[in-house]
């Protein structure tokens, strides 16, 4: 599958491609030539003999350069070939073919521990939380388990698990307040937490204070470490490849869209945070019983930076990124034994260099060919699943949504005042009004993003105005957004499957144990059918961001349909479309209404579309209801015409005769 990079046949794009190619050539020079040039200059120009022969750096730099190049090539096949080459290279190192490089057996334990910690750092980050407290969690696990084995003579496994679960408990407790923090604030707060933990142990005499704890029994064998790493990877692979992984991705990239699709964002964040703490505690316990001596200074910022470089360089999309980067960076100390005190400096420089080169890391899902729901699974279809038809009970009321006297204010600004209208079942209802009339505000109020200050919103006979977006989705209300909130790097199919997130039942445990496969398959098939309905089946496997604009709009609609809602709220579905596309959209929406029995409320500016498609139209202006009627009447309504075209009667307020002057400001009305 080729990477999409736009249509090169466009004349305008060709120049852009040339410039891009030049830039990448410059980058290649920077990665491959400059380091050696710098080394030569430092060695012979500045006479810095400690650096040794520049060519002896070859093993050190080659791995790094290869890794960097993987991120620079455009073609996936080339990239994968480079991955294979790099794998061969490291195999050569590990097999002892490189002089001076120890065989794998002596490097492996350390690599495993670093890999575990990198994964512990990666896990919360995969749901958008950069937790820099992982060093502190590692310390907790290490000290707790060491305490139990040395002081209370516990056997290894119980002590280890006690330490790990204890750390997970701390992580769980911390994850709640962490929910309130976002982005860099969370990173800083967790950084503080990690340091507080370390300082606590510096002052905690029973564990040796600053001098640390020694005499820990050597329980950890190499195979323990390898097994733990393998199990962790297997569990994460199973966990993240289905519903939970999709949800974590969604929370990371667009929390608001995720919530609107029914993803329980708080649960995902708590889950990944706690699991990350667990793995860190586990790694801490394992390492303590391997190196036999632990001290607070081991759990400080130097270690954290090691793992941070690995995660950033490797890539946040899957755990394979950190694993690969652990191999590349973890072997550096061995390769550079003659320059061990340059390691930290190199780490810092590599961090900056790779962030500038590839901010999202080198290894991605696309490179691995991974998906959150393999197409294969979907196409393995047995019998087509029957289309779930929203059965309308005989005594169901005609009115599906009733907006009664809704008011909303933002500080001093009255965004909505006394808005009243009804949407009937099976109807296509339009919501129009000039810019700033309050249409999207109303949508946000209906879908639980805003709380209303007055009035009520009743859906299917029950009030809904104080429910969360996820709850509303379960009741049967789904929405699209004004600016498309698709998950660009996910495939079309994955986006639709996210739409069906709330309809699926598999929790983290079922996913981790691999018991979710049947449900995944069914969901994937349902999604594929929906795509067929919307004529997007051909592009089901493509990344959403590569779709044309019109296709993206249709994908949004497919996604909201995936949760089988009774009411669809569409925010400007025809924005940016030309007349033909808009007409096509109109036909599509009519089909959705008719065949699937849905009700649609849509905001639109395309009057042709609204007037021809909607059975009823509500007009807002300045946050107030103007009218709610059939299209023909709305078009004739004088207040509607005034709202759009402007009023013909001017009310100038002149203090003096005939002088139109801004000193009229004294007569200003209510702002």
């Amino acid at each position, binding site marked *: 599958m080729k990477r999409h990079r736009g249509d090169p046949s466009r004349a305008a794009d060709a120049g852009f491609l040339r410039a891009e190619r030049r830039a990448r050539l410059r980058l290649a020079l920077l990665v491959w030539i400059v380091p050696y040039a710098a080394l030569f200059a430092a060695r012979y120009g500045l006479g810095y003999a400690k650096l040794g022969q520049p060519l002896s750096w070859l093993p050190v730099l080659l791995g790094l350069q290869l890794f960097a190049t993987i991120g620079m090539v455009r073609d996936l096949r080339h990239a994968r070939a480079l991955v294979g080459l790099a794998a061969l290279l490291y195999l050569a190192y590990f097999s002892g073919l490189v002089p001076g490089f120890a065989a794998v057996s002596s490097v492996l334990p350390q690599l495993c521990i670093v890999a575990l910690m990198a994964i512990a750092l990666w896990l919360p980050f995969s749901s958008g939380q950069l937790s820099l407290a992982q060093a502190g969690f590692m310390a907790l696990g290490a000290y707790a388990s060491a305490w139990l084995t040395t002081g209370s003579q516990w056997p290894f496994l119980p002590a280890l698990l006690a330490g790990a679960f204890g750390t997970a408990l701390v992580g769980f407790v911390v994850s709640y307040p962490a929910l309130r923090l976002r982005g860099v604030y969370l990173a800083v707060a967790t950084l503080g937490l990690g340091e507080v933990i370390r300082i606590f142990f510096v002052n905690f005499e029973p564990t040796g204070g600053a001098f640390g704890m020694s005499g820990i029994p050597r329980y950890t064998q190499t195979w323990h470490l390898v097994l733990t790493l393998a199990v962790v990877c297997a569990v994460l692979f199973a966990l993240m490849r289905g519903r939970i992984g999709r949800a974590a991705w969604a929370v990371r990239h667009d929390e608001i869209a995720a919530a609107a699709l029914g993803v329980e964002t708080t649960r995902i964040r708590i889950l990944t945070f706690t699991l990350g703490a667990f793995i860190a505690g586990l790694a801490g316990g394992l390492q303590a019983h391997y190196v036999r001596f632990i001290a607070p200074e081991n759990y400080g910022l130097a270690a954290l930076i090691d793992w941070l470089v690995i995660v950033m360089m490797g890539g946040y999309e899957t755990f394979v990124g950190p694993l690969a980067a652990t191999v590349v960076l973890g072997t550096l100390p061995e390769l550079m034994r003659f320059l061990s005190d340059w390691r930290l400096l190199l780490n810092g420089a590599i961090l900056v260099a790779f962030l500038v080169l590839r901010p999202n890391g080198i290894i991605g899902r696309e490179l691995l060919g991974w998906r959150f729901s393999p197409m294969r699974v979907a196409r393995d279809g047995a019998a087509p699943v029957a289309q779930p038809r929203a059965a309308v009970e005989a005594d169901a009321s005609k009115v599906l949504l009733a907006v009664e006297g809704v008011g909303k204010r933002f500080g001093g600004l009255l965004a909505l005042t006394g808005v009243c209208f009804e949407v009937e079942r099976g109807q296509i209802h339009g919501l129009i009004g000039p*810019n700033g009339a309050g249409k999207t505000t109303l949508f946000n109020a209906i879908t639980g993003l805003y709380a209303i200050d007055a009035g009520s919103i009743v859906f299917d006979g029950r009030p809904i105005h104080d429910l969360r977006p996820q709850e509303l989705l379960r009741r049967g209300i789904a929405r699209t957004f004004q600016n498309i909130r698709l998950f660009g790097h996910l495939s079309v199919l994955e986006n639709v499957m996210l739409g069906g997130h709330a309809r699926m039942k598999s929790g983290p445990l079922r996913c981790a144990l691999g018991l979710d496969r049947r449900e995944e398959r069914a969901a994937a098939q349902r999604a594929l059918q929906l795509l067929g309905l919307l004529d997007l089946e051909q592009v089901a496997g493509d990344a959403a961001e590569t779709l044309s604009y019109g296709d993206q709009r249709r994908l949004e609609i497919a996604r909201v349909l995936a949760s089988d809602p009774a009411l669809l709220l569409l925010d400007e579905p025809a924005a940016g479309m030309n007349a033909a596309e808009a007409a096509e959209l109109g036909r599509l929406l009519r089909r959705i209404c008719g065949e699937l029995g849905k009700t649609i409320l849509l905001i639109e500016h395309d009057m042709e579309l609204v007037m021809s498609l909607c059975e009823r139209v509500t007009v807002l202006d300045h946050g107030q209801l103007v009218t709610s009627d059939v299209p023909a009447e709305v078009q004739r309504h004088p207040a509607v015409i005034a709202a759009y075209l402007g009023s013909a009667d001017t009310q100038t307020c002149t203090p003096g005769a005939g002088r139109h002057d801004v000193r009229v400001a004294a007569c200003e009305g209510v702002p």
Partner: protein
Amino acid sequence: MLATQDLAVRYGRIEAVKGVSLRVGAGEIVALIGANGAGKSSTLLAISGVLAAARGGVSFDGRPLSGLSAHEIVRRGVVQVVEGRAIFARLTVTENLLAGAYTRRDRGAVATDIEKMLDRFPRLRDRAAQLGGTLSGGEQQMLAIARALMSRPRLLLLDEPSMGLAPLIVDAIFDLLAELNREGLTILLVEQNAVKALGIAHRAYVLANGAVVDEGESQALLADGRLHEAYLGMARS
């Protein structure tokens, strides 16, 4: 004075403006009207240099404007008042005015101009030391215009000056624009409120779906029913 030639603007794959050619003569008020989403704002943003044109060019006084950065265009004498006013809420009224005069070097004349602005807008003089964020919508619009005037532009671009404002204030703003035009300022105005815009404009262009569908003298456009169709869909019965 200002001319655009087949101007096109793209957002990713969508062409919001599909080849617009218009002219503004010195001393005129020209209006760009049309329904929401017609591409009016994008056209203006392409002229003032905030957005890069995908195709076509803009020229001012015969010299090309396209390709220049926004602040260079300001130095040439073309200033835009953006949609939603975008005054600096955390700066005072006076500081906002100073910000408008940023490209000018003649400090003494700037101070005089500030005095003149505050004279012209007594409401602003009352609030000269207050933060921009505390002003009402109408006052903010006046501040935005005053700020734009501080750089002594020869052409003023206005994007939806009536948006979110009460009718009386809209009148005051439009009266102000008419007066500024009488004093010699050329104005290109984007407006949804067609009637108001045509009330002060000499000529207008009607945009729909990113292209010019109609143009002419204001009186002519007001008279026939084509406006109605452009805005509200099917022809009035």
